[in-house]
């Protein structure tokens, strides 16, 4: 029963035993870890749709494999996966294999997305406008446009069933999805859960950010004083979360521990953050309080850091305030400099990057970063470097104002 529920007297510890990731840097942990560690960038001219009338011309497109990995989906089902669902499936399969889980009947799947199957929506709209009496493919598009249907395909592919939750808090969605799954486990509603985020590049969303003049026409340089906007990317990441007890019982390889989550809504403006990052500050404090850590315990911050003027100054202000005297030695970077802003996937992908940093003991640099914004009282990682990382924090913020922070601890 969802209500009344049996709530554990003490919330269990939650660890990550599987992580799948796909970005423009590559498919899977290894190529991404190598790319982020080196600070590689993955931007190239957009080929998926026409951008000749847009200000920005670049994005971080993923090279999808010719064929998807074999799953329990039929050929017909697989053929109905659009670009976004393919990204999701690839990352889910990686997390699933790594976790060593077996198909199960009650596996919660919590996903964040902003656009879901937008490619289906765009195709539906075009056909309905241009050839309104042609109905071929329209029913399929109307169904598979919906993110819960794409999520269900993932569970079908993995031979599992379970409750699906789709969180759509814009660009905070991925972090919120992971946080929500964490809470489900701590609340006693599940022992395990899959959680993550996904979004594919599409014409409408690219056009939207371009219309807002939020896209960089030069280089995406989060926290640089000369930054002029964000760059878009696409991808997905999925985490296998389970109680520590469950992981130990199975003898599973533990990639890290999720120890804190904070979320709140910034009511300042639909698209602009509070200039002093009040809500960002609050959610970082909230996540730290739950995790039982202080800013001095944090070894790396993976910032939301979009590269827009307003986001980065607000976040820099909040991080500097939150860290206080520790700011001067707190390494911060935004991996959006490498793979762009992945919108609903961003928080999940950046969570996996934090796990990489914790597992492999390095910090992901922003190589294009040169001149810090005056609000940055912290060092922005701009050179590839090894580091001692025991606790990492990741921020995500979205249109509409939802801010989310997740904190991970190294498992050694």
């Amino acid at each position, binding site marked *: *029963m*969802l*209500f*009344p*529920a*049996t*709530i554990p007297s003490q919330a269990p510890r939650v660890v990550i035993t599987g992580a799948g990731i796909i970005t423009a840097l590559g498919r899977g942990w290894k190529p991404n870890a190598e790319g982020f560690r080196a600070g590689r960038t993955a931007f190239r001219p957009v080929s998926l749709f026409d*951008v000749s*009338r*847009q200000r920005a011309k670049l994005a971080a497109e993923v090279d999808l494999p010719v064929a998807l990995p074999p799953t329990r989906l039929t050929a017909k089902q697989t053929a109905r996966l659009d670009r976004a669902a393919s990204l999701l499936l690839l990352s889910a399969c990686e997390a699933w294999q790594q976790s060593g889980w077996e198909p199960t009947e009650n596996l919660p799947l919590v996903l964040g*997305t*902003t656009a879901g199957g937008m490619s289906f929506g*765009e195709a*539906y*709209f*075009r056909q*309905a*406008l241009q*050839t*309104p*009496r042609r109905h071929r493919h*329209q*029913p399929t598009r*109307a*169904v598979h446009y*919906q*993110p*819960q*249907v794409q999520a*269900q395909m993932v569970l079908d592919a993995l031979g599992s*069933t*379970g*409750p*699906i*939750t*789709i*969180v*759509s*808090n*814009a660009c905070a969605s991925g972090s919120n999805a992971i946080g929500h799954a964490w809470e489900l486990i701590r*609340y006693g509603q599940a022992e395990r859960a899959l959680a993550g985020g996904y979004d594919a590049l599409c*014409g*409408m969303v690219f*056009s*939207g*950010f*371009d*219309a*807002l003049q939020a896209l960089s026409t030069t280089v995406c340089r989060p926290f640089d004083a000369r930054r002029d906007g964000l760059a878009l990317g696409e991808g997905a990441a999925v985490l296998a979360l389970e109680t520590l007890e469950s992981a130990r019982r199975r003898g599973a390889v533990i990639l890290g521990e999720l120890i804190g989550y904070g*979320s*709140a*809504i910034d*009511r300042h403006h*639909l*698209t602009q953050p509070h200039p002093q990052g009040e809500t960002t500050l609050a959610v970082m404090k909230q996540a730290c309080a739950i995790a039982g850590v202080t800013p001095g315990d944090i070894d790396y911050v993976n910032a939301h850091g979009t590269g827009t003027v307003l986001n980065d100054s607000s976040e820099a202000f909040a991080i500097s305030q939150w860290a206080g005297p520790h700011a001067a030695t707190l390494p911060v970077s935004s991996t959006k400099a490498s793979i762009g802003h992945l919108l609903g996937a961003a928080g999940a992908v950046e969570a996996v990057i934090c796990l990489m940093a914790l597992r492999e003991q390095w910090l992901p640099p922003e190589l294009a970063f040169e001149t810090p914004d005056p609000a940055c009282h912290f060092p922005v990682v701009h050179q590839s470097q090894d580091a001692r990382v025991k606790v990492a924090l990741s921020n995500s913020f*979205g*249109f*509409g*104002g*939802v801010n989310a922070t997740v904190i991970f601890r190294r498992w050694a």
Partner: protein
Amino acid sequence: MSRIFVAGLGAVSPAGWKVAALREALEQAELLPAQSLERPGWEDPFRARLVPNPAVRPEFLAHPRLRRASPITHYVVAAALEAMAGLLAKPDPKRRLGLVVCLQCGCVNYSCRFFEETLKDPATASPLLFPETVYAAPTSHVAAFLGNVSLANSLVGDPATFLQGISLGVQWLEENRVDACLVIGAEEINWILADALWHLERPAILTAGAGAVTLCRDPESSMGVELAAITDAHSYSTRNTRTQAARAMREQLGAPALPVNAELLCDGVGNSPRADAPELAAWRDWTGPRLSPKRILGEGLMAAAAWQCVAACNAVAGGRFTAATVSLVGSNQQAIGARFVRADSSISHLSPGNSPGNIRP
């Protein structure tokens, strides 16, 4: 386990801009008239049940965040204000409000307008429209309008997601992260959505609006209704059909614990035989009173799910029933059920991990 009470209800529907209008329409049990909705490329328009203009221009429209907002935000804010009226009458600056907004299709009007502009010429597409296309826009606007929202989520899914939203609100209350939680289900209408529904469920008549339920832990703030149970989310899959999921939901709710006329079933049956079949089969043995709001109001997607809960709670609050069961058999995700009871009734909760025999008298 905490006791969770309903502190207020709100509704905007084709019947009008208040819960009272919804209740009257359902009591009269006459199909609301349908209007024409232009369908590009076709001579025959769609039939849809549009939300009537409010009798008086709502004052909230003067709020800077709401002037350019799309109809779905107006519905959400109106339903929220009505559901919050009781709490707003007792202002408490320390009150922490949670907000969960559930949507299936969301901001379709501005999405279509913006994409149409993009198709014509992306260089001139309006930057004002794009932010209003995101699922989270109505949540953001209503949070800004209410002011004391500390925690908010936008959930997307099929209509049964509304009870997931209620469950999330309960979780926040039980964890003492909020003092009250407003859960809203909403949709707006446009031709492309009507077109999609025409492709999927031809007999259905599309409608729009919002329904809101305010939850709290404080019995003093209750409107006399208490949440007794929410079943698990019975998801559909290749191995678990809608029919099986609906049946599992029904079995988890168990048999009525009350005399036959004391409990209302508020179901999601509409006018689409194919879509309705699993739910009808699941409740075939129900002999008590039954209310099917979609038959009168139309297919309001997430808003319709919210109206079911609002109608159920309203029936209990009005003293007509001691309990009301809500059955949500969603279109493509899950089946979830819930039971609301009169707060002073002796009906207890279903126990966690319930089996059908677990209802206590």
